[in-house]
């Protein structure tokens, strides 16, 4: 369980998060939704120890994020950032193997390599493993970063808009794989999503942020209502049930 208490965060003079108190359940797929600038990425980065906590407290299971050594956190939690520009000239295979660093510290065992090559397979990257990162498409690179985090084999997986640049097949495949990790391997996943239909289809828990505050949170079936979403995004949004699934319409 991730528990966040009285979290405030400011960038310069702009207050980004206002007094957030929130718990994210273990063993589920939690979607963070909300309009641009709501503070979703900031919250995810703070949980993932990518930025320093200014005031308040965040703990992941029993570990306080601010005080736990990074080496220990990295064995508990993997992160996929929204943008990752890498200066070194790496192949996809090299990048994915870096996911084993927290465990192997650069000395890969056959077991580490097996996990990395399994990750390549899972994310449909085996054919690309010898290609350089600057020679593949944005979506393929995105999948490579997810595969690296997957290779870290942590209890918690934090993803910031992993569906960016992904085509329909790979977006669906990625969400399905994440849902499988939750279901079969008892992992916990926090994911920032813009596609509400993916949130409705796959998430076990939804947290909506609006202007740095929690607007609502709960099970998707209950909280993803037309009124709540219309208010959240300040745009007319309808929900319909089709074949027993909630479908969210907002295009015109």
């Amino acid at each position, binding site marked *: 369980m991730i528990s966040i208490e009285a979290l405030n965060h400011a960038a310069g003079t702009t207050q980004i998060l206002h007094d957030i108190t929130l718990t994210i359940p273990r063993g589920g797929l939690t979607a963070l939704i909300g309009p641009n600038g709501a503070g979703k990425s900031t919250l995810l980065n703070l949980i993932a120890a990518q930025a320093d906590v200014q005031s308040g407290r965040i703990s992941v299971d029993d570990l306080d994020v601010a005080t736990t050594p990074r080496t220990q956190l990295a064995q508990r939690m993997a992160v996929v950032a929204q943008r990752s520009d890498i200066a070194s000239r790496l192949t996809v295979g090299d990048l994915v193997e*870096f996911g084993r660093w927290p465990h192997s510290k650069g000395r890969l065992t056959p077991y580490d390599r097996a996990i990395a090559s399994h990750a390549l397979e899972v994310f449909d990257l085996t054919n690309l493993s010898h290609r350089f990162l600057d020679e593949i498409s944005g979506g393929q690179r995105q999948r490579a970063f997810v595969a690296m985090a997957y290779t870290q084999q942590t209890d918690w997986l934090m993803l910031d808009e992993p569906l960016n640049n992904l085509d329909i097949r790979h977006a669906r495949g990625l969400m399905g794989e994440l849902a499988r990790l939750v279901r079969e391997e008892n992992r916990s996943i926090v994911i920032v999503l813009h596609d509400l239909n993916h949130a409705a289809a796959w998430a076990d828990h939804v947290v909506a942020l609006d202007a740095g505050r929690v607007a609502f949170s709960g099970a998707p079936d209950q909280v993803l209502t037309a009124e709540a979403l219309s208010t959240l995004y300040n745009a007319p949004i309808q929900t319909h049930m089709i074949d027993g699934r909630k479908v969210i319409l907002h295009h015109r």
Partner: protein
Amino acid sequence: MPNMRIVLLAVLLVIFSATFLIWGLSGRIWFILELRAVKLSALIVVGCAVGVSTVLFQTISGNRILTPSIMGFDALFILIQTMLVFMLGGFGYTQLPQLAVFGGEIAAMVLASLALFTLIHRRSRHDLQMLILVGVIFGLMFRSMASFLQRVMDPSEFAVVQGAMFASFGGIDRVELLLAGTTIMLLSVGILRWASLCDVVALGRGPAQSLGVNYNAVERRLLIVITVLVSCATALVGPITFLGLLAASLAHALMRTHRHILLLPAAAMIAAIILVAGQALFERVLGLQSTLAVVVEFAGGVLFLILLIQGKIR
């Protein structure tokens, strides 16, 4: 096989070194050999410092076209020389205890950089770009101050300063060589223990942190290593960092890997080979006309452009 390429570089370095030692040897053989051996050792340790420090600097800055010289080390070195000559006069300068000047220069360069790092890290954390920018500005300031002093000083004293403004491997002091050489070699070999950590740091702050690297601490330590390497090399022979960009690019082009365990030795050996070859050319073919910098920059620059056009450097 990248390892074969490291072996190839080592063989090349040995061949060039041997050629440097025995080319045109005549007369008092042992005396000349000894002089050349001192010069050769200086060329190799300086090459090592330049190659290693540039690769490390490019790794933490995530930028393949930077070298530590952008931080104004050369400028500070020249300013120190100019001020000493200005205050003591050309004759007084030559009377100074060399070793004290040498130690003082290293201390000044290391302290100035540490002050800069601490200042920046306290003011705006996580911002290497800011550090580099401030370094550039200080470098410009040092350079302007030095050139102002050079303008107002006596022409004969200016000639003394000018001698210190270009890297020179003539008349290397043996004690200095021993001190700087030992420090450089210890650091360069020691840093190989962090080679795989450097691989992760090269991924950038975000990915490295998420893999459990305490990025700030590692970045600070690497900056200190870079500073000491550059300061030792500069105090020993003068401003030489022009070579770094060339050596690092060639190392990346030749090794085609992200692994620092291969990149660092490759860059060190490439820089050493270029220096040894350049010095040999400069002494034996050009008859000590022009400077080593001109030889290295011209020959190296042409090689760099050829590789760039062929698409070997990217």
